[in-house]
């Protein structure tokens, strides 16, 4: 399977994602933001980091880059798109995913390992069991997902909420909500379910020496 990782000035999880993709035998290419053409690929990843320093709004400037126009076209054709952390913020800024990512409720950057409850009814998560609890790492300033309550309801009905923050038993409530996200949302899909945006970093949990391999399920789901 072919994958492409988009690199913006200020991306900093691009290498980490590439390492994870390589581990699963993806044929991966890195593409610089100024490029106007995308190589043929089945998966496009927008990695984490601080594209353009996140200086205006997180993801806002990257969303205006040349390459993003191509990403949007690919998305419309049904190519799989994964945005992690800053990548999620960029997908929101382009309008490919709905809602907004506000500053964390404690107004601080948060780096922590968190438990997530998985909805496996989508292309990105099918290797997990439904409602499986996994542990991934978050590292962000603006991951507080906000949208209208109708939209949340809509996403619940269509099973578009891929990940929710929880405890290790799968309880989803305010006590286990690190950043204040509505409905503990950590990752969402578009209606066609070919675009996934998520704040937690699956690429960081692909190595037992670091914490665990809970992130591998996501990449191996995409693979077949």
């Amino acid at each position, binding site marked *: 399977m072919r994958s492409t990782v988009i690199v913006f*000035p200020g991306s900093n*999880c691009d*290498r*980490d994602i590439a390492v994870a993709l390589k581990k699963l035998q993806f044929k991966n290419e890195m593409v610089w933001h100024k490029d106007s053409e995308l190589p043929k690929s089945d998966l496009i990843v927008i990695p984490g980091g*601080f594209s353009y320093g*996140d200086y205006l709004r997180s993801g806002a400037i990257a969303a205006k880059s040349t390459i993003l126009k191509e990403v949007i076209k690919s998305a419309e054709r049904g190519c799989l798109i994964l945005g992690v952390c800053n990548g999620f913020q960029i997908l929101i800024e382009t309008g490919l995913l709905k809602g907004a990512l506000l500053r964390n409720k404690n107004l*601080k*950057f948060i780096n922590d390992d968190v438990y997530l409850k998985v909805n496996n009814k989508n292309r990105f998560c099918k290797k997990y069991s439904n409602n499986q609890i996994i542990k991934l790492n978050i590292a962000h300033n603006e991951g507080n997902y906000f949208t209208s309550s109708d939209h949340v309801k809509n996403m619940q009905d269509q099973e578009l909420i891929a990940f929710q923050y929880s405890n290790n038993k799968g309880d989803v409530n305010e006590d286990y909500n690190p950043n204040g996200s509505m409905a503990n949302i950590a990752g969402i899909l578009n209606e066609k379910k070919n675009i996934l945006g998520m704040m937690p970093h699956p690429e960081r949990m692909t*190595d037992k020496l670091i914490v665990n391999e809970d992130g591998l399920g996501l990449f191996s789901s995409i693979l077949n």
Partner: protein
Amino acid sequence: MKISDNIIEKHGLKKDEFQKISKLLNREPNLLELGVFSAMWNEHCSYKSSKLHLKKLPTKNEYVIQGPGENAGVIDIGDNDAIVFKIESHNHPSFIEPYQGAATGVGGILRDVFTMGARPIALLNSLHFGDITNKKTKSLLNGVVSGIGGYGNCIGIPTVGGETKFHKSYNENILVNAMAVGHADKRKIFYSKARGVNKSVVYVGSKTGRDGIHGASMASAEFDEKSEEKKPTVQVGDPFTEKLLLEACLELMKDDSIISIQDMGAAGLTSSSVEMAFKGGLGMELDLEKVPCREKNMTPYEMMLSESQERMLIILNDGKEANAKKIFDKWDLDFVVIGKTTNTNKLTLKYNDKVEADIPIEALSSKAPIYDRKWKKTKKQNKKRDLIKTINLSFRDAIFKILKSPNQSNKSWVTKQYDQLVMNDTLLRSGSDSAIVRIHNKEKAIALTVDSSANYCNSYPLTGGKQIVCESWRNLISVGAKPISITNCLNFGNPENPEIMGQLVETIDGMREACEYLNFPVVSGNVSLYNGTNKKNIFPTPVIGGVGLIENLNKISDHKFKKTGSKILVIGKTFGHLDQTVFSNEILSLKNGPPPEINLINEKNNGEIIYDFIKKNLVNAVHDVSSGGIILALLEMSMHSGIGAKIAKPKHSLNQFEYFFGEDQGRYIIEIDEQNLNKVEELLEKSSIHYDKIGHTQIDEFQIEKDFREKIIDLNKLNNKWYNNY
């Protein structure tokens, strides 16, 4: 223009120093030249008070590729891998503007590391704030922590370790020390020494603004009607630009374009150009009108003294300019040839073809003043007798009080604000004895730790200096690393005061002794003097950054208990030393008394056997015993793992408080499987190392004899309380 006494003073120069300058030039300097001299002759660049004593520190062992004197130290960790590292202070700027001060501190130390051709792979820091009741402390803490995070997180380098301490001696002068560690190919290390005449001197990075042109520019403003515009401004960090600069420099370093490269840190263009020329035995000529400026009408004086961030000076090989420029264009960074190397041995500064300054390079560097300042020995204080008779708290309450105290509280409030995992090689994070960072794509790692113990140094610097080197060594051993070398940041008060100078001299003496004995040399560092105000100096605070090597990723250890039913041993002898401990400070409110003694022989023997145990997979967990004594070490092992322990003091003469709270040095706690006990005891006895069997691990309860029995979950709550409520 005549240089008045007032201008000399505002440049931080003494009258006799000014006379020396005039003598070296055979004339009086002009204002620009005076500015250049003041930048090069200040304490920060010239090390004029500390140089004589720093020389005593060992700087070599079989691993050292580059010791002090370069942008950072370099060690060889085999397979052509080199580790480049340094620690530096950014104390004063952080007190004035905590967010930007701390952020630019991180940015500066990162440049020191990637200037040498290394990709930064880890950041650490040591923070000392004033007393928590001081009204500035809270906002300084908030600002510094978010500044460090803001810079490191954005540029994408994990902050993997550090320390945060509070003491009233830092009320008016906080300490912000940042350490950066990078990885390089040993065959591709870049140095600052210029080579060859008529080579292009290139300015790259951000534009130059009027940042950080300290009091010096105020003096110049007296001669200008637009003085309001010339007020010094605080440097603002731009981590995004630094990330671009990092990638651009590393890209350019892939081939042989660069002859030498130097970051523009303190005293920016001045120190970088002088440093490069001096090391190469050359001169340098700069055309200042070519310097990329952020503001209109900047003067040569401002350009030379600006401390704008994210800039580098590079000397290129012939014919490499076009290709190099292409790289910097790609990253949207300025790239301008601003001068050339010469054989004049002078720094010649021109502005629109007019020579504005012409100074022999030697006058700025090797002929800068060196002082043998007067110093006084610190008298060793007597041990307090019958300390334990003054205790008016129960054992249980004493433990509670310490767990709740700011200095011993869980620091995850701080460390969660730093991205610790980015780059995906952090195997052990903050809160451990040392952090462990894997070398990317390799089966080996380095261990990193930052330590200080200012109260020991304040009481008796000779022992304090020794102790802090040993503590660094011990922290590396505890995770299974072979200690290789250190970087140090010496934060002291006013060296013109003989007592303070004495603290510096004796701390260095102590460090030297320990470094020599442990074969643990100093490869880089920084001295920060004049920390204090109104004759109130900070506690002498040497901060040590230690680096160790792990050659097998399966032979590492951490301090978390792993399972129930295993045995707990204390390695090393406990004498019950309570003076200068957390206990005497927090519980007895005592300030006097000597620090615990260091026995280097025991230190080394005990450490080596622990290292051996880890390599033989005989231990489940290891924790060094440091501030807070055995009790705090055990509690951390429990609290961070959720596994309890049942402990009993060995039957000997020491009182319970002395045994559990004493801070005798060179000790470790280990958790071992019952089946390994015989083997471990045998090895310990063979090496004549003292040990105590003090109990075993159990589920979720921490218990000491009949006097203490608590759920781990409650202890964690207590230990986490302070930061979250501050």
